């Protein structure tokens, strides 16, 4: 089992929500993404159609996708699995995305683990919602509807790259 090492630029990633766009890591091209075949993503969304759509958008990429229907299931899966990136819907029954992210961040601190990037999938880009995402510990956010190009640019920008030997 691997947990991604703490890369030198991790603090920048965590700060990405606050940082101006220009200081962010440039999005690698899609071909660069394909050299890291073991990037594993946890997709959390209560709506089946949303999960199926994201699954479809990632078809043909080398990303491995696991899904969860609400925040509580996501926390369970996160604690028992290994993920390089989490894509998290915000409004969900049982446990919403804010609570799930707060829970994951607390657990990571407890375990002494580096924070895994968690990207919020939000319905609006209102300042209030973005601030709420920051406060909960989300790394960044994407506004729905999510376009394929946006998604394929965001994943390599934020995903923790697994160690190379596991990528081969």
């Amino acid at each position, binding site marked *: 089992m691997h947990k991604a090492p703490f890369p030198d630029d991790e603090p920048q990633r965590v700060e990405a929500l606050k940082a101006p766009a220009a200081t962010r890591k440039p999005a690698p091209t899609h071909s660069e993404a394909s050299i890291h075949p073991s990037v594993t993503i946890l997709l959390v969304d209560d*709506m089946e*159609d*949303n999960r*199926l759509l994201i699954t479809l958008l990632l078809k043909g990429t080398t990303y491995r996708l696991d899904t969860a229907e609400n925040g509580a299931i996501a926390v369970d899966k996160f604690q028992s699995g290994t993920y390089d990136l989490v894509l998290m819907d915000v*409004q969900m029954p049982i446990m919403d995305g804010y609570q799930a992210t707060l829970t994951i961040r607390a657990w990571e601190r407890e375990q002494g683990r580096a924070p895994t990037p968690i990207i919020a999938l939000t319905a609006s880009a209102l300042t209030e919602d973005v601030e709420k995402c920051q406060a909960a510990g989300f790394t960044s956010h994407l506004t729905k509807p999510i376009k*394929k190009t946006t998604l394929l640019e965001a994943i390599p920008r934020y995903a923790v790259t697994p160690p190379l030997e596991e990528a081969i």
Partner: protein
Amino acid sequence: MPPDLESRPSVAHVDASFEPLIPKFMTNRKKELTAMAEAVTQDDFNTILKIAHGMKGVSGSYGFPAMTAAAARLEQAAKSADVESINRQLTALASYLDRVQIVYVES
């Protein structure tokens, strides 16, 4: 007579790669309309609010802007517990789902 949501022809331009997902998408939206019609008889505005919010998001992602707009109006109507407006939007959405013509476009 001015065109309204019920009588206006409706075409949705959907990404061709989404085609395999569309039958399930349509079935799930119809189920949601049924659930909201049931909820409105019980003044369960919170259920309508949640379903309409989800419908707004998913229809936007799939490429049904007319549905997205109607779901947003429905969400607002549920927020203000406006039964008359909720029923109007539910009728409009049911009609839309029955007659929408999907044109698949290559991305």
